[in-house]
Every structure is written in C-alpha cells, then in structure tokens.
C-alpha cells in the first residue's frame, strides 16, 4: 500500500488496523491487486457487475450506523439492486491528520462486521493520511464486484403499465437520523438509520418474482427521486397513494417540525421495486419473510397515462405532482 502525505506512524497504524480487520485469503498476500479465479465467479451467474461509490457523511457516527457500515452497505446494495450477488469489495480511506484512533478502530470494526453480514470480502485497499483541513475527518471509497444471476433482467426502462411499485418498509429513517444528529435536535424519541445490506432480501425477491422489472435503492433524493427516474426511464406514469406510504410516526413528526417532505429523505436500507402485477403477491410474501422487508407494502402502480410523471393521491383525496428536486427543499409559495 502506498504512503500518504500524513505522518508515517499514523499511516502505518491505520493501515494495519484495516488489514487486521479485513483479514481474508485474497487480501493476505498484500499485493498491489487482489486476484480471483474466473471459474469460481462463474458459479454465481453469467455477468459481472462492478460499482464504486465514495462516502462522506457528517457526523461520522450516528444512531444505527457509522460511515463504515454505510460504505459497505452502499456498495453491496448498488450491486444487489442490479440482481448481482456481491462478492468482493475494495476500500480506500482518506483520513484527516488528527482523527482519533478510537474512531478509526470503530469504523474499521464496523466495516468488517458489516462485510461479514453481507457475505463479502474486502480484498484490496488503500489508506491516505492528509494534512488538517485537506479533508473533513474521514472519506471512504468502496468499489465492488458482484456476479449477476443468469436470467435476471432488470432495467429502469422495463416498467410496464399495471406493474406494482413496492417498498420494503418505512421511509426516511436514515435521512431523518442524519439531520437529527447533525442539528443535535434532542428529540424525545430516537431515530435510527435503516442502513442495511439488502442482497439477501433482493435475492429472495428475485427468486419469488423472477419477472421483477427494476429495483433501486432509495438513497439520496429519496423515494420521490427513484420514482421519477423510473417514470422517465420507462416513459410511463406512476401513481402512488400517500396513505400507503409507510413512514414511522417519529419520522413523520420530525418532518412536520422541520418542514421537510419525507418523500425526499434519504434511505440506506430501502429499495423501490417494480414488479409484474401477477407476481406482486409472491414478491410481497418473499419480502415480508425477510427481516429487512417485514414492513414491505405496495405503494402504487405504473400506468400508461402521463408518461414521465409521478402523481400522488393525498390522504385528502387531492392529486399532487411529485417531481424531483433540483436543489434543496425550498418553499415555492409566494
């Protein structure tokens, strides 16, 4: 592993920390690259999936998780929503000089534990320590390789009229948790991030509903953003019912207080699935049987009306356009 700009002692220490935490066979030789057998990969399916994402979050630790757990789950989920079995991850960390050793140890352990839960191995990595002010405490990048099951065909362009739109549980927990932690709101009740690896859940869904059209994790921009991506990608309309959208009372109250629309809040353990109508029941049953999907519910359906638009029937019976946001949630009232 290369040396960063920071103090060598700290660098070596952190390097060791991660190498210890992630110890596994491909990582063991500490070469410049991890090596795997193609034959071994081919047992999982017929196509490779490869993704990368960088994680910056403030605060680094929050109820229900930390940046490390986020970095593993995020990349695992990005692979899983494409129908892939996630297998190998890389991990690159950029650490600001002076970050507490305790914190780094916690993050490394949390990443390792999450990787175990997700059934993936972190097989290559890198550490850089940079001067104070050159980054904000800790940035993590993970990339991942997975193998897509044979026969699985998922695409944002595949939604069809009458398909159902399903989410695997309550929305907005992660976004609310982060905002709450960031503002130090001192709410009576705590909110926890829903951060979780969803490959198992998605595997069960694809088994039960093989004609599933599309799955996406509702991360930044929340449910509203994903639904709009589907509506545009498939040139279909999507209709959802406000009354069907599962939101925890405490998150709802938090949104009320802050004036935020929960449809746009980030999630780290929630997926939006578009499933064929005749497989919807099986899909729901499979999802609900999984611990990360027990509150799964159909929130709406796909139509051939108004291609590209997402419309929500409100609890009062009105019909509201749900669009993507260009920026922050800004009042539009004059």
């Amino acid at each position, binding site marked *: 592993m290369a040396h960063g700009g920071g103090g060598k002692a700290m660098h070596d220490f952190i390097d060791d920390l991660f190498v210890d935490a992630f110890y596994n066979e491909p990582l063991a030789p500490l070469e410049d690259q991890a090596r795997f057998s193609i034959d071994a990969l081919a047992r999982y399916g017929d196509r490779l999936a490869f993704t990368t994402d960088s994680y910056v979050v403030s605060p680094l630790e929050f109820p229900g998780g930390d940046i490390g757990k986020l970095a593993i789950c995020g990349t695992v989920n990005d692979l899983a929503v494409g129908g892939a079995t996630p297998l190998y991850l890389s991990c690159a960390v950029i650490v600001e000089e002076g970050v507490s050793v305790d914190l780094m140890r916690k993050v490394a352990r949390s990443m390792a534990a999450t990787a175990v839960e997700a059934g993936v191995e972190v097989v290559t990595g890198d550490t850089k320590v940079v001067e104070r002010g050159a980054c904000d405490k800790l940035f993590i990048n993970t990339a991942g390789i997975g193998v897509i099951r044979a026969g699985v065909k998922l695409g944002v362009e595949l939604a069809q009229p009458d398909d159902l739109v399903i989410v695997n549980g309550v929305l907005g927990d992660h976004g609310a948790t982060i905002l709450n932690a960031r503002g130090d709101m001192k709410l009576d009740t705590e909110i926890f991030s829903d951060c979780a690896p969803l490959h198992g859940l998605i595997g069960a869904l694809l088994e039960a509903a093989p004609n599933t059209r599309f799955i996406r994790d509702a991360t930044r921009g929340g449910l509203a953003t994903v639904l709009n991506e589907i509506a545009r990608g498939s040139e279909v309309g999507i209709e959802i019912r406000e009354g069907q959208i599962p939101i925890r009372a405490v998150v709802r109250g938090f949104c009320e*207080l802050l004036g935020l629309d929960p449809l746009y809040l980030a999630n780290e353990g929630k997926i939006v699935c578009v499933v064929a109508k005749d497989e919807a029941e099986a899909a729901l049953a499979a999802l609900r049987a999984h611990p990360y999907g027990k509150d799964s519910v159909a929130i709406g359906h796909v139509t051939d009306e108004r291609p590209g638009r997402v*419309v929500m029937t409100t609890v*009062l019976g*009105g019909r*509201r356009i749900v*669009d993507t946001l260009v920026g922050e*949630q800004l009042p*539009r009232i*004059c």
Partner: protein
Amino acid sequence: SDAAAAELGDAAEIRVIGTVQGVGFRPTVWRLATEERLVGEVLNDSEGVLIRTGGAAESIARFLRRLSAEAPPLARIERIEARGLPAPLLAESFEIVASLAGAPRTRVAADAAVCGACRAEVLDPSERRHNYAFANCTHCGPRFSIVTAVPYDRPHTTMSAFPMCAGCREEYEQPADRRFHAQAIACAECGPQIWLERFGEQRDPVRDPDAALAQTVAALRAGKIVAIRGLGGFHLACDATDGAAIQRLRERKRRDAKPLAVMATDVEMVRRYCRITELEQRLFEAVEAPIVILAADGPEALPAELAPGLDALGFMQPYTPLHLLVLRAVGRPLVMTSGNLAHEPQVTELDGARTELRDIADLALMHDREIANRIDDSVVRVSAGQPRLLRRARGYAPGAIRLPPGFEQAPPILAYGAEQKAAFCVLAEGAAVLSQHQGDLEELCTYEDYCKNLGLYADIYDHRPQLLVADLHPEYLSTKLALEVAAERGLPLRRVQHHHAHIAGCMAERGLALHAPAVLGVALDGLGFGTDGTIWGGEFLLADYRGYQRLASLAPVAMPGGVKAVREPWRNLYAQLRAAMGWEAFTRRFGALEGCADLGHKPLAVIDRMIEAGLNTPLASSTGRLFDAVAAAVGICPDRVRYQAQAAMELEAAAARAGLPSRAEAYPFARRREAEAGELIRLDPAPMWTRLAEDLERNAGPGTIAARFHLGLAAAVAELAFDLSQGSRVDTVVLSGGCFQNKLLLEQVTRDLESRGLRCLSNVDTPANDGGVALGQAVVAAATQLSE
C-alpha cells in the same frame, strides 16, 4: 384622426383588428353604414373585419368615428386601418358577405354576463325563450369557456352538439337581429337543457326543466347544498342567510375558513348586507361580472360563517340566465363557491361532479352544454380609488392587454409565470395576453389545465414564441416546464427575477413606455427566489424594463421549517422576536404576556437548533412573513393558517375595524446599511417589536395593534421609498407584489408618497400577486430583446 379620415375621399377600405368576431361587429357595421347611407360590404377574414365602403366623404369620416364609439359591448378594437380607394364603389346597398377562410389571427372574446335584452326575454312569459337557461346573443353569453378551436365558429365550440332549429337559424341569418351569427345561439327547442340529479338517492333525474328548477329552488330554501353546473365550472350553492347550511358546506368541502363568494339577484339585494359605492356597483353589474369585494356593513348581517375573521364579503351578479332564474326564484343571496374539494380546481364535467361532489352536495343541477375550458370567477376590489383585479379569470381572459409605446416590434414571447397563482403570458405585436388564473401547479389537474391552455392560447393567437421566459426559482413546475420546452424546441430561455417581474408587469399595465426613465419599484410579497441565496419579499428596486438594482429590502429573518413557516405563523413570530431582541431578553421583559406563554409551549429548542444549524431554515426578507408574525402576536391564527394569506387578511380586517390611528402611534422601523451586502439598506422591524409587546402588555387589543403595525409599515415603506427616489432622481414609484392587495397598506403608502410629490403606480388590470408575474416576465424579456 379627422384629417386622415377626410383624405379617404368617397371610397375606402377599412380593416378592424382585435376581438371583433362573434361579438356582433358586422351587424353594427351594417347598421352604421346603412344609417350613413353608405354602400359596400363587410366581411370576416383571418385578420379580423374588412369593410369596403363608398358614399359621401363626410359620411365615411363620420362612419369611421362612430365605428370606434358605437362598437358592440364585447368588441375590443385594437387597431383600425383605413385607406382611400382609387375608384368609386359600384354597389347599390351595403351587405354582409360570407367570411373568407385563411389562417386565423382573430381573437376569442371573454365570457360575458347575460345582457339586458336577453335577461328581459328570459323573464318575459310571452317570449319563446321565457325561462330558458341558455339564452344568449352577440352581446352576451359564453365565449372562451366553450371554445375548442379557432376560428370562433359554432363547430369549434361545445355548441356543435346542438343543431339549430328553424327559429334560431332564422335569427342567426338575419343581419338586423342581435343574434345574427351568435355562435352560441340556442332555444329550448334545440339547445342545451337542465335537469336535476339527487345524489345518494336511487331516483331518476328530474328531466322537466321547470320542475328541475322548482325543486332546486325548494332545496336551496330548505338549507340543502346544490352543485350547479355553471359557465366555467361547477359551483356549490347554498342559502347564504343560513349559517347551518354554510357550516355544513364548509365541513363537507373541507374548507374551514376561506371566505365564500355570494351571488345576489341585484344590487338592491347586495345593499342589504354591504356598503356599495357607485364604482363598485358598476363593477357588480359589468359584463365581466366579477366577484366584488365589499365592506360588510349594510343594515343586515349575513352569517359570520361566510367569511370568518374578515369584514368584507364578495358579491357577484347572476351572470347567466340559469343563475338568474335560480336567484330570482330563491329570493335570497346564495353562496356560490367553486365546486371542488378544498385545494383542487373546480369540477367541469358531469361525471366528475357525480364522483367528486356527491359527498358534498345533496343535489346537482346539471346541464348538457360541455365546458371546454375551466375558468374561475374573477375577483375585484376597489382600493385607492381604482378597481383592482385580485384574480383575473372569467370575463377578462383571454382579453389582450395593450402594451405601452416601444413594444410594437416585440418578438413573440411566452412567459411561464410563477407557481401558486399560475398564469402564463403570450406577447406579440405590442399586445400581451395573460391567461386566466389557474391555481397551484402542484395540483395535477391544475397543471394539466395549464399545459392544455398553453396549447389553446397558442392556437387562439396563432402564437409561435421565439423566446421563453421563466422565474429564477429552480423548483417552480413552470420553470421546469419552460426548461424542458426550450430544450425540446431549441428556443432561448430567459430567467427573470421574481420581484423585478412584479414591478415590470405593473409598469407595463400602467402604460410606462419602453424607454421611460427608471422607477423605484417596491415589491412586497410572500416569497420569491433572490439572487443572493436568500428568499426575497420586501424589495426596493431601482428598475426599468431591462434590469434593476436592489437598493434596499426588509431585514432578512430565518424561516424555520421553510414551507412550514408559511403555514404556521408562530414560527415567524418566534424568529422575529429572536432576531429583534433575543428570546431570553424578550421573556425577561415580557414573560407575563399570554402570547409569550403560548410560544413557550412550542418546540422552541428544536427551532433554535434548526436556525443555528441552518436546517431547512432559509433567510427571507419577506413582508408576508412579517404580517404572519404580527398576526400571531395578536392571536390571529398563530398555530396554523387554513388558507393562503389568512393571517394577513384577518390582520388587515382587524386594523380596518379599529381604524387607522394618528401618525404618532405608528410602530417604528429602523434602517441600517449593510457594508458586506453592497451597501444594501435594510428596513428592520426590530424596534417595532418592543412597542408592540408593550401594547400587548397594556391590553391594547388586536385591532389597535394591527392598525399601528399597518400604519408603521406603510410609513416606513413610503419614507424609505421617498428617500431612495430622491437619491436616484426618480419621480415614479411602482408598488406591486401580493401584499399590496392589502387595501390599508396600498392606500396608506400611495397617499404618503403622493403627498410628497411622487407619482405612484400600482396594479389595476392584472393581479398584484403572482397572478401578474407572467406579464412582467414577458415585458422584461421583450425589453431586453428590443434593446439588443
């Protein structure tokens, strides 16, 4: 001019451009020509009306003068072009000849209230249209609301479903008849019919029109709620003298506080409940038939449920024969509120009414003339001596607004307007057409109407824009649509700052020429997207059509919770007090106040954290939010507003009831100059809050406080505007933005500025609120284009 007319000689070709088709223009031409003993012909073509005429030169000159002076009531002449013909005309008489086809460039008139002649016919038992609910003529009746395409001919209206009977056909073809070429002509034999449906009862509809009418009337008198299909949509009607019926309507419609419009048979009925001036009476009786906002202090009172917390009522005339027949038979004023669930556009279709209104109305008075274009009732209020349109819709749209000198060569422009009082504007050839008010674009139905109307207006005006214009706000659905269309058609898009658009729109409708010297624009409203990362709404701009310089604004204050702060006035009160003196200092001094205790029960710690962490807490220099804060301080809907601007409207009503105090009692505002904000002057309400709290302490009462606030704000605004105008050598102040729909504020600021020798302009023909923004966007873009 007379000189020009004299040069025409004894034969002339005269072209009339404007809204001149389908309004009885040719029969008028025929009558005038015949009276002047002229020969020749008149016809409709794609440009408007074309006249070729011959006779004595002075007769032709007189004919030309009378043409403008005696044009039929619904005609809107934009231009008359006349030229002499070289040879005399070989004709024996004057004739109306068949229309020439061609690309339409003529206008569609706005819907008009039933005229005196039709009204008399409907009420006369000896007439064949006695009690017929759809009588109309070239001087009155439906136009825009029934148009499906242009040119405005019967096949292009929803009247195409009704073949004329022999009687109607004869009238239609008789030039001397006032129904000559009346495209919506109808009678009981051939035209639309009414019937009555009973929701929730398994009984057949009442098909006989007289019985349907009689049962409707009986139901209304018995306190029932009736859905009535009208001109531009369904109304929900009930007895306006019956508080219980009104309450029932409110509950079922889930509209708990917003004022309800009332229809009265005539001005005599209005006078029982309201003071009405001569000008207001003229508005009430005008062909546009708007809802006129009147002071509710007549000899009798209507139930408070009509307009809770307000001291004004909105009255309109029965503007169709159907309404007239119902009103006369009921003999009482009727609530006539739009037929919908709260926050949604009114229902127009029969099936829509059957599904969406069945839980609100007991009965539905239906008819089978389809409504092609949904259009709301317009609202007007006399303020500072002028009738001001608060909502511009039925009766006014799609009429053109003539632009001031300099805009004649403006290219075709389409401006998309704002978001919540959505209206767009098409501009071409020196005229601007502002679409009817369409409501909140986030409502699906409204958005779809807006899109449909964009197409309809483009057809009506044969408008192919070369330039699109939108607000700076990135999240307005109108902005997003404009961006999409611009990309799709490869058209340039210009973004115009919200408050500059408010000011420019007002300048344009008040006739300031393109190259007129700069004005001082004062834009007071709720929220508009600023250029400095904050939200604006209390702005003093040195402006012309092309650009502006922000000289001053209200001091920006946090809006904790963004949109939530608009709905919950207490948030603004807390933010204001916190900014003015700090919450702790405030409670130390005024802790005994009841309002202080109430605020103390709110989650203030969370709000503090939001403000400190900048969580969904934009800064806003908004006048609307200041009104909300003051309202909350005196106990006017502190927890929640139930309709837009409720707090401000009730605060105004409270001040009006108390009457304006002497100048000395006006609350003080401070001014400070912000070096880091480019020497911007901030008008700071901080000193006002101490005085207000002291007044609360001595139990001054909400009315007194509201009045002192109004006067203080008006004085501070006028004084700052005056000083800025002196500094910038400007002699005209332009007042716009939704807050100037507040009569007290507008009148006080106007009086103050005029007494200091300044010219003061404010919106008349277009709404001062966001309903007028599109016009401003269009002229700003046009001005920029014209000076390039």
